[in-house]
Each structure stands twice: as structure tokens, then as C-alpha cells.
């Protein structure tokens, strides 16, 4: 099981690494969004500082949509979907492996984004532990929900437009919770950051559970 998960995650990451899309397009895109938010808010330091957590997570959600889109297209091109079916890997392992690969890509983007808000928005970090944990937990949750929905839209012709319609409302609580946890970590608003982290974990567990159960059903629906 663990070996299968590693094989699936390794395959996806290798394909992503080889295409260099994350490094050469997604990360610049994310940085660009940060800069443009800066223009949109009129480079107003207090406003930017207040809005930093929200802008950070908005950007992550945009990137999630891209990452899931790419992760899904790996399995929909040519006969690759058939390969995955015939290979006979347990659907749960496929789900976890693909979600892990998406999570790793998102974490790479988030590292750049943290650097970006420090430089462009002058953010200061009060609580590194909370910041890092929030990133990890929120990313896992986002990747799980995204991977499930990616498989769900895989057979739909207009999947590029259907995916965000489904994904963004589902991720709304993540946006709220992760933003609030960041508010605490960056010290911009005094809130109970750790309680929000708990809510994020709850979201992650629920959606991973449904994903693990439903992924096989979706794969089977050829």
C-alpha cells in the first residue's frame, strides 16, 4: 500500500518536474498575483498588511485549481486512465498518492508566496510554528478535496470550467479558516489561530475520508 502510494506520487511529481510547469509558470503566476493585488490595493501598507492572509490564501486557491487541473490531465490523456485502471493499484492508494503530489507542489508554491508577502507586503511573522502547521494542514485538506473533484470532473468535456465551479465553494471554509489562522500567525489580528487550525484539520479529515471512499467509485465509472 505505502509502496503504491509512493509509486503514484512519484510518477506524478516526476511528470510535473519534467514539464517544469510548476517551476516556470505556476510560481511566477502566483508571484504575479501577489504583485497585482499590491497594485489593486493601491500599495497601501496598512491595508496590505491587514489583507495579507486573505490574499495569500486566495492565491493558493487559484494555484490549487491549476495544480488539480494538471494532476487530472495526467490521467485523462490518451490511454493513461486505462493504464491506471489496468495496473490494478488500490483506488485509495491512487487517491492518496495523487493528493500527496498535489500537496507537495502547493507547498513549493507556498514557500515562494511566504517570501513574497514578507518582501512585498512587509509582513512580519509572530508565530512560525502556527504558520508552518497551517500551511501543511490547509494544503493537505485542499489537495484532498481537489484530487477528489479532479477525478469527478475527469470524464466531463468542459472540465476546465466545471472544476472551479465545484472546487471554490467547497474550499470556502479553508479560505476562512486558513486566513484567520494566518491573521494570528502574522499578528495582524488577535484571534484564536490554533482553534482555526483545528477546524482546518476537521475539514481535511472529512474530505479525505469522502475522497478515499468515493475515488474508487469514480474510477470504476468508466
Amino acid at each position: 500500500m505505502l509502496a503504491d502510494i509512493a509509486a503514484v506520487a512519484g510518477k506524478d511529481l516526476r511528470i510535473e518536474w519534467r514539464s517544469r510547469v510548476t517551476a516556470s509558470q505556476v510560481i511566477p503566476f502566483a508571484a504575479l498575483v501577489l504583485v497585482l493585488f499590491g497594485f489593486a490595493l493601491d500599495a497601501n501598507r496598512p491595508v496590505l498588511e491587514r489583507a495579507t492572509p486573505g490574499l495569500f490564501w486566495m492565491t493558493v486557491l487559484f494555484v490549487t485549481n491549476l495544480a488539480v487541473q494538471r494532476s487530472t490531465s495526467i490521467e485523462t490523456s490518451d490511454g493513461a486512465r486505462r493504464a491506471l485502471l489496468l495496473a490494478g493499484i488500490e483506488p485509495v492508494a491512487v487517491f492518496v498518492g495523487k493528493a500527496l503530489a498535489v500537496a507537495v507542489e502547493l507547498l513549493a508554491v507556498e514557500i515562494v508566496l511566504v517570501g513574497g508577502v514578507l518582501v512585498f507586503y512587509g509582513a512580519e511573522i509572530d508565530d512560525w510554528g502556527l504558520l508552518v502547521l497551517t500551511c501543511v494542514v490547509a494544503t493537505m485538506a485542499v489537495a484532498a478535496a481537489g484530487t477528489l473533484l479532479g477525478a469527478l470532473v475527469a470524464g466531463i468535456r468542459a472540465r476546465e470550467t466545471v472544476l472551479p465551479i465545484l472546487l471554490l465553494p467547497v474550499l470556502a471554509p479553508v479560505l476562512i479558516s486558513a486566513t484567520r489562522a494566518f491573521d494570528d500567525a502574522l499578528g495582524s489580528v488577535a484571534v484564536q489561530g490554533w482553534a482555526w487550525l483545528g477546524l482546518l484539520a476537521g475539514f481535511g479529515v472529512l474530505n479525505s475520508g469522502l475522497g478515499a471512499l468515493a475515488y474508487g467509485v469514480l474510477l470504476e465509472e468508466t
Partner: protein
Amino acid sequence: MNRGVVPGGSVLAMAIISLTGVVALLGRFPGLAGVDLTVEAGEVVLIHGPNGAGKSTLLRVCAGLLRIESGHGQVLGHDVRSERPAIRRSVGLLGHDTALYEDLTVTENLRFWARASRVEEAQVPTALDRLGVPSRIHDVAVRHLSAGQRRRTALAAVVVRRPRLWLLDEPHAGLDAGGRDLVDALVKDASSAGATVMLASHELDRTVDLATRHLAVAGGMVVGDHGPEVDHAR
């Protein structure tokens, strides 16, 4: 994990494929309109028929890739309705498209395949060698391969798995003379090793001698089923 071995049953004594009244849909189109078919172990079955007859659909049903709408049956002892994952794990299917990841190299593709199929990764170079895939392209991404090279790589993926049931959809298509001979040799080897082979082909001249049984398919049904002798007489 159940790897497709029938518990307590002799493999040779039973039908490898038995289908009764199988209807399978492609979207809303009936690809198969009621197929009855029994294939015994060790047979080499040639499926022929016009385009759109349902040859590929039949192979996909036998591979457990397609949900059946009505009818029932078994493949390798697994129910074609409820045990499709077990069927998929046990068969070797070469489809129209090559079921390879475009951005992975030949070796990476086959390694992933071998690991997923619980086969020693050491088998990979042997299989590639058997298919005459030159070692200079082992580390080339599938995206950059020619159609014939892809086809050989895809066949190597089937060989790696050493299936008891080979399902080959137009195995000669896109291959040069050497490749075609190789396919014939593979089928003969598999058959003499006790495996069952179903192949869909338009190349009757070439496949007639390979097959122990000819299946004519049209309109999503089996319309002719006889031994090789009839075609020889013709």
C-alpha cells in the same frame, strides 16, 4: 491481495472466458448487443469483422474495463459485473491507444507498470529486449517516440505482466515487418506456455495460421464461430 488465481480450481479445466447475453454500452450506443461466448484455456481466438462491429468493445469487456448493461459472465473466474478490478489486474491488454504516460521515459513507464502489477522490476529490460526496443531509447520520454516504438513499448508492458489472458487489439497495426513477425512469435510463445489469446485483426492473411479459432463479429454480436479449417479450405 487476490491476484487472479482461482482458489481450489484447476485453471485448465475451466473456461477462461464465458459470456452470456452480454450487452455493453458506449455512451448510449450499444457496442455489444448480446454476446454469447466461451473460450477455453490455451485457445488463440481471432476476432474479425468490419469497422464498428464491436471487436474492441468485446476486448474491453473481457479486460474488465467496461461496465456491462445486461447479461452475465466470468473472465478468469471473476464475475464481469462485480469483480472487474480483479479481472483488470490479471489480463494483459494492448489497446488502440498505448496506455503509456507521455512524459515518462520507456523505462519509467514499464517500471511503474511492473511495480503496480507486482512483477519484479528486473523483468523490464528483458521484456524490452524481447520486443526489440533498442536501449538507446530506454530513457527517452514516450512523447518523442515513433508510433511503432510506442507500440513495441506497449507490448512490452503486456509481456512484463505475463498474463494468463492476452487481449490484443490490432497488434500488427503500425509495426514494420520485423515487428509483425515479433507479434506472431509472442502469440505463439504465449499460447504454448498455456496462456489464452484473443486478438482482433484485419490482417487475416497473417493471423489465420496463428489462430485456433475464428470469431466473426458484426453488429455487436458473434455471427460466426468456427475452427481454422474453414478458412484454409477457402
